[in-house]
Structures are given as C-alpha cells and as structure tokens.
C-alpha cells in the first residue's frame, strides 16, 4: 500500500492513482472539445471536394459504436470479476475488451480506405482535414487503450491480485472515456452531417 496514498475522507478513500487518471481525463476533455468544436466550425466551409454529407455513411460508424459500447461492458465486467476474486474471468473480459478495440480499429481502417478511394483525403479540403484530425486522434486513443489493456491483462496473469484492482480500474476509466468521446464524435460528425 506504500505506492498509493489515500487522501483522507470520512466515508470513501481517494486513491492517488485514480485521482491522477481523473485529472488526465479532465485535460482530455479540453483537448477533444477543441477538436470537436474546430470540426463544427470548419466542416461546412467546403469550397471544393467532397462534403460531409457526400462522403460519410452511417453503417461502419454505427457498428463501431455498438462495438465500443459492448467493449465498455466487457471492461466493467473485468473489474467486477476481479473484485469478486475471479482473476481468470477478469483476464478473459480484458482480452475481450482489447479484441473489440482491435475490431474497432480494423473497421476504422476500412472506413478510411473507402474515403481515400472516393477522394476524401486529409488535404482535399478543410472538411477532410478536420474529419481525419478528430477521428484520427480518437483512433490513436483507442490504440493506446488496447495496448494498455493487454499489458494489464498480462500483469494480471503473472502477478496481480484482486487487491490491486485499481490498475484495472484506471485502465477502465481511460477506456470508458474513449467510449464517451466516441459518443460525442458519432453525434457531431456522423449524425449531424
């Protein structure tokens, strides 16, 4: 317990590692708010090349939304099983989460290849730049999340105990935040196009 320092509280202790992740996520709110607002301002200032309405379809983003929401359920079940002392089930749910994250990235790559084939490149117009910036940074966050989840699953298999559930909880917070950002991107970029 020397590695984390609970801040005093009458009812619920505050773990310094979780506190750190929440501060990081708070900074990420500003980062993604800036990107999404920039997209909102820029996406309909197209003078040439494909517009959002012409280039974007709903099929792959809707499937990706379902995938990320399902992965969040898998992530939270991993934590619940670890707290119940079932480490093997926890690892299985963590691997399921990572696999769903990889599926999201594969579908994102398919979507990007379709866009590039249809002439929507990052430099074709201001919509292209804004679109690839917002969705690209989100996809990068998903990729980081997958790597983090796999490393936690590996650690859990080797040495972690249910008493160290905060490590799963912190990666879970990050993963759910990535899901939360996608909820906003799905609405702003794809549904309000």
């Amino acid at each position, binding site marked *: 317990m020397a590695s984390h320092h609970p801040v005093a509280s009458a009812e619920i202790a505050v773990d310094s590692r979780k506190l750190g992740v929440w501060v990081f996520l708070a*900074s990420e709110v500003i980062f993604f708010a800036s990107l999404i607002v920039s997209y909102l301002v820029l996406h309909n200032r197209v003078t040439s090349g494909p517009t959002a309405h012409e280039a974007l379809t709903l099929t792959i983003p809707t499937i990706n939304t379902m995938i990320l929401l399902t992965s969040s359920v898998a992530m939270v079940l991993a934590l619940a099983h670890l707290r119940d002392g079932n480490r093997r089930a926890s690892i299985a749910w963590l691997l399921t989460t990572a696999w769903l994250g990889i599926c999201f990235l594969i579908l994102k790559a398919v979507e990007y290849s379709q866009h590039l084939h249809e002439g929507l490149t990052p430099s074709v117009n201001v919509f292209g730049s804004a679109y690839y910036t917002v969705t690209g940074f989100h996809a990068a966050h998903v990729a980081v999340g997958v790597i983090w989840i796999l490393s936690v699953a590996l650690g859990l298999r080797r040495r972690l105990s249910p008493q160290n559930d905060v490590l799963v909880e912190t990666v879970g917070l990050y993963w759910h935040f990535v899901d939360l950002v996608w909820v906003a991107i799905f609405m702003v970029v794809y549904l309000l196009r």
Partner: protein
Amino acid sequence: MEAKAHKHPNYVLVGIVLIVLTILEVSVISLPVPQLPFLLGFAIAKALLILMYFMHLKFDSRLYAVLFAYPWPLALLLVGMLIWVYFGFRA
C-alpha cells in the same frame, strides 16, 4: 478500500440501454422531427450512463466528479468563443 461496498449494478442492462439509445439516435435522423434536441438528449443520456455506472461516479468519491466537471465550463466557453468568432467573421 474505496467503492467496494456497493453491489455491482447490472452492467449488461446498462449496455443494452446504451445500444437501444444508439438505435434510437440513428432512427431519429430519418424522421421528420427536429433532430438536434433528440440527438443531444440521447447523447447526453448515453454519456451520463457511462459516467455514472461504467466509470462509477455514482458510487465513488465526489472528488472525482468535481475534478472531471472542472474543465467543462472552460470547454463550453471555448465552444462559445469559437462560434462567436466564426459567426463574427462571416457577418
């Protein structure tokens, strides 16, 4: 230890509700209704479910919620300023 006293919520049910809300979101764009209020409502409902149940803000210390809420006024100010600048230049 923190946040362990509560019984686990029904996470699968929360997930099903989130997927139903997504289906409603996608459906509403083909209906002859004002889209923005519905889409905003569904997105906010989904975000709150994720924050409350998956990120455990409903059960954890309020300090985390305060920390997470802290940048939102700044983010909204940013939104307002950018929209103001954008429409200012267009006017």
